[in-house]
């Protein structure tokens, strides 16, 4: 069953008086419980697509149909409200959703522990590293348990060990909530390790260049086991073949 259907999606924007067409009649569906990674050249419209699904932008024409109650979107910049501590920032979604000021401290604490942020709840954002803020932004989105999860470069500031930890949590979250996840990344390895579908975009106007269904033959998805599995290199090679034109200059 498709939870997200994009049909005839057309989007363009005007910047410095020149009009850029991002999408020109894009059709794309996402299945319930899938994890899809969008790969492609910089500025090909991956973030624009997430913004359209999150309804932060409206398409010029075409439709975004969502069969699901809640969409969670972790914005790439991981914005933190500077007057709130990390813990209070992580709880803001819960506050809005429940329209309440009760303390979600203990709920948040479990997430902070699991994401390697134990005892970091009371730090203010200006004293936190980029990696910490990125994890808090992810927690902030996960803690409201959205059925559709949009993640824009959620691992870009994370050290390798922390990244694996976060990815394990993400897989766990998806399994427990049967969530549909769309992940934007530049990292081919992360794409293969996490997703069951990888979509490669072309340059603008963006079209689907190629699609891969990933099956690593694992009983359960695991960020480390995926990386050492037999098929991993082959997928990497195939995906790289589609993207290596970017390496020209």
């Amino acid at each position, binding site marked *: 069953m498709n939870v997200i259907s994009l049909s005839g999606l057309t989007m363009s924007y005007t910047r410095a008086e020149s009009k850029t067409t991002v999408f020109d009649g894009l059709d794309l569906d996402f299945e319930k419980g899938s994890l899809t990674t969008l790969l492609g050249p910089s500025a090909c419209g991956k973030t624009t697509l997430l913004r359209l699904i999150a309804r932060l932008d409206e398409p010029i024409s075409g439709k975004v149909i969502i069969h699901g109650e809640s969409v969670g979107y972790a914005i790439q910049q991981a914005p933190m409200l500077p007057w709130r*501590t990390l813990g209070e920032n992580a709880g803001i979604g819960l506050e809005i959703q429940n329209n309440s000021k009760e303390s979600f401290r203990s709920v948040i604490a479990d997430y902070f522990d699991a994401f390697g942020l134990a005892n970091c709840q009371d730090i*203010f954002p200006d004293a936190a590293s980029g990696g910490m803020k990125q994890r808090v932004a992810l927690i902030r989105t996960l803690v409201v348990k959205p059925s559709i999860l949009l993640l824009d470069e959620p691992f870009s500031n994370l050290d390798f060990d922390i990244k694996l930890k976060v990815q394990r949590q993400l897989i766990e979250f998806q399994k427990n909530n049967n969530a549909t996840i769309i992940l934007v990344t530049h990292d081919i390895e992360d794409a293969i390790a996490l997703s069951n579908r990888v979509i490669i975009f072309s340059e603008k106007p963006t079209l689907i260049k190629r699609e891969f269904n990933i099956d690593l033959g694992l009983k359960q998805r695991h960020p480390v086991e995926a990386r050492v599995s037999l098929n991993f290199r082959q997928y990497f090679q195939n995906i790289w073949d589609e993207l290596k034109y970017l390496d020209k200059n």
Partner: protein
Amino acid sequence: MTKNRLLILQILPLIVFLLIWEFSVRYDKELIFFFGMPSKIFSYLISKTCDGSLLLDILYTSVEAIGGFILGNLLGIILGLSFWYSKTAADIARPYIIALSAAPVFALAPIFIIWFGTGILSKIMIATFSTVFLALFQAYTGATQVPREYTELMQTFRANKNQIFRKVITPSAIVWVISAFKMNVGMALLGAFIGEFISSERGLGHLIMVASGLFDISLVFAGITCLMIIALILTTLVSHLEVPLKHMVARYL
């Protein structure tokens, strides 16, 4: 450098300055009349503290400054947020506010004395007037310059307009106002002092005005010393308010 060593190095120039001052005027009555004398200032500070009058003056001036500071900042936040809410109101009010904020407090102070009497209330009002504009500008800027990511973040959680106002716009305005506290507390003190200087029965402004009328320069300096100490204490105090106030904003908004 350790904290204690820094403190000693900070106090050292003051002591040297006071010693030079003391011994260059000490043996000449005329010089004492014109420049005052540190030992005399000191003895004034002691005797006036002992008879309680100096503490009362300090209390008056502090209460006026703090009262005006609180009122001015609250009013500034309320006005700044209202102008964010209605852009038309902001556009209409802008020239008046710029004109009013440019008017010298010294010129307006007598009017406040006529309206609110020679007691403590008129000084609080003058101090309020001295602080409200900076607070208003800060609050308005904080509310209007909220980064787009913050509001979009709220939209991703399906926040309604009231929630965005409460959780992003208002805190941002308040945080901007807090960041100007250090500057504004000086304005409040100045406002209270000007009010007292023009007409009052108590306070450091009153003390200084009376002392200068009597050509008692040492007493004037004693009053100025107290003013500076209050300024130092208030500035330190408000700089320590930043974190607890942020916590309050996050807890209640």
